[in-house]
């Protein structure tokens, strides 16, 4: 069933009783060519591109809970490519390009909305850093605009330009970056992968790996042993645990990142605004909720929830930047478990066990990376060769020192 306005009309005339399940709920088969562990954005996208780009036939995605409810369903949906360093920037540019056609590709409106991402700066030194970043972006053929204070004020007049603690000098704008609807990404990829024959197996938790002769042969799950030619791990937040089951360690610590949403409001914040001095960012969803967040709580956590000091800091940052926010009410707060890598950048590589492939360490960047990561990981699994734009995401870069440290904060997992 293709989705369209016509289909909606047809179904409406039938009392909306004719809609079909968006994906099957199959039982696991005894064997697959490729098993993807993790039914989040990266896992689902990988399965989809394995089937579509590489013609892999027997693919399963194993998800311990229900699809798309990990970090994909809990993030604040910003899609941008404001990355500076070689080996990193080109990947996010590649991913951003895929977003632009994703709704058509998946026959599912993922509501990609290029509303413009504004990153504020507050001193000449910060402007220089953003200029370096913006020039790197333009060098890759991305769009970037350096806005002065007056131009910025015309665009977003409601910021506090006059009394805020860190006066606003200007901003770097990526005009064609924005937001998307996170659940639609999960469901869109799930439905599209399902239509290509991928088995999406929910409530199937991986409990171990069957490794023989240094090579993976199977995964042990709560729904039995499943033989696998290759295994791709895409479980950001829990990568370390899966790696532990396969007998290796990763340069990753899991940290909680909180986010917040207000009640529905008429449109008031049109862009994504990021306020580095306050570790604060905000956008408004199509439903009208203001979606915002801040920095990590700082301690390692798998709890999907945080604590008050960070909550207060985020609210205070919002108030110094946009004092109108005081009247908006927070309806809900939550936490995501971030795979914080030791240099702040992801890993798409072979794991130390033959046949196991690893997609991990996305820090906060995972959502925007979903399409690019899916293409890159599928290619690596199918052909053994990395996608050029993702070739720098090697696991051994930490040992060799070919780091991708956008923040320049070094090997402290919680500082990126």
């Amino acid at each position: 069933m293709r989705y369209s306005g016509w289909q909606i009309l047809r179904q409406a005339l039938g009392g909306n009783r004719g809609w079909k399940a968006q994906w099957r709920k199959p039982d696991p088969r005894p064997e697959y060519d490729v098993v993807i562990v993790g039914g989040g954005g990266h896992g689902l996208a990988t399965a989809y591109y394995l089937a579509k780009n590489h013609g892999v036939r027997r693919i399963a995605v194993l998800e311990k809970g229900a699809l798309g409810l990990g970090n994909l369903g809990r993030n604040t949906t910003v899609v941008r490519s404001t990355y500076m360093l070689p080996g990193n920037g080109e990947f996010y540019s590649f991913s951003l390009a895929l977003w632009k056609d994703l709704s058509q590709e998946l026959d599912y409106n993922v509501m990609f909305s290029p509303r413009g991402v504004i990153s504020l700066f507050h001193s000449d030194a910060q402007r220089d850093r953003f200029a370096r970043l913006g020039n790197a972006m333009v060098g890759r053929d991305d769009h970037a605009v350096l806005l002065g204070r007056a131009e910025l004020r015309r665009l977003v007049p409601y910021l506090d330009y006059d009394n805020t603690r860190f006066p606003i000098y200007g901003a770097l704008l990526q005009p064609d970056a924005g937001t998307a609807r996170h659940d639609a990404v999960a469901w869109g990829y799930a439905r599209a992968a399902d239509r290509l024959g991928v088995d999406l197996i929910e409530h199937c938790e991986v409990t171990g790996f069957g490794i023989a002769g240094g090579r993976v042969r199977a995964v042990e799950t709560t729904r039995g042993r499943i033989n696998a030619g290759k295994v791709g791990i895409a479980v950001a937040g829990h990568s370390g645990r899966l790696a532990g089951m396969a007998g290796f360690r990763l340069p990753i610590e899991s940290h909680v990142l909180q986010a917040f949403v207000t009640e529905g409001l008429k449109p008031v914040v049109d862009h994504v605004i990021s306020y580095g001095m306050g570790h604060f960012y905000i956008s408004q969803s199509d439903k009208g909720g203001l979606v915002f967040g801040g920095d990590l709580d700082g301690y390692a956590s798998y709890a999907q929830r945080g604590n008050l000091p960070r909550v207060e800091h985020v609210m205070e940052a919002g108030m110094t930047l946009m004092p109108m926010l005081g009247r908006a009410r927070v309806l809900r707060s939550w936490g995501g478990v971030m795979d914080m890598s030791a240099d702040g950048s992801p890993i798409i590589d072979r794991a130390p066990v033959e046949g196991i492939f690893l997609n991990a360490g996305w820090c906060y960047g995972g959502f925007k990376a979903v399409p690019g990561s899916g293409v890159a990981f599928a290619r690596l699994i199918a052909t053994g060769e990395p996608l050029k734009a993702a070739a720098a995401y090697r696991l051994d870069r930490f040992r060799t020192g070919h780091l991708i440290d956008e923040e320049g904060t070094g090997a402290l997992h919680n500082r990126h």
Partner: protein
Amino acid sequence: MRIRCPLCGERDSREFHVMGAAEWLARPAPDAGLEAWDAYLHLRDNPAGPTRELWFHEAGCGAWLVVARDTVSHAVFEAVPAWEAGA
């Protein structure tokens, strides 16, 4: 979250700065080789459960503490000064 600092008593987590896993205390010998240094700097057990972590009582006594806590329940078991803890 609240931590019982062995020097100051129970304090709110907002007084502390967290560095990361207590493995930072197990600094390898300078000639231990790249593998050992890679492990020290980057690789983490990252347990879902009890862990040991370095917290600096920055807005308090200035002690570096090893805090034993649980990454799933957020229970805090114990905090001891880093100089007594060892890696």
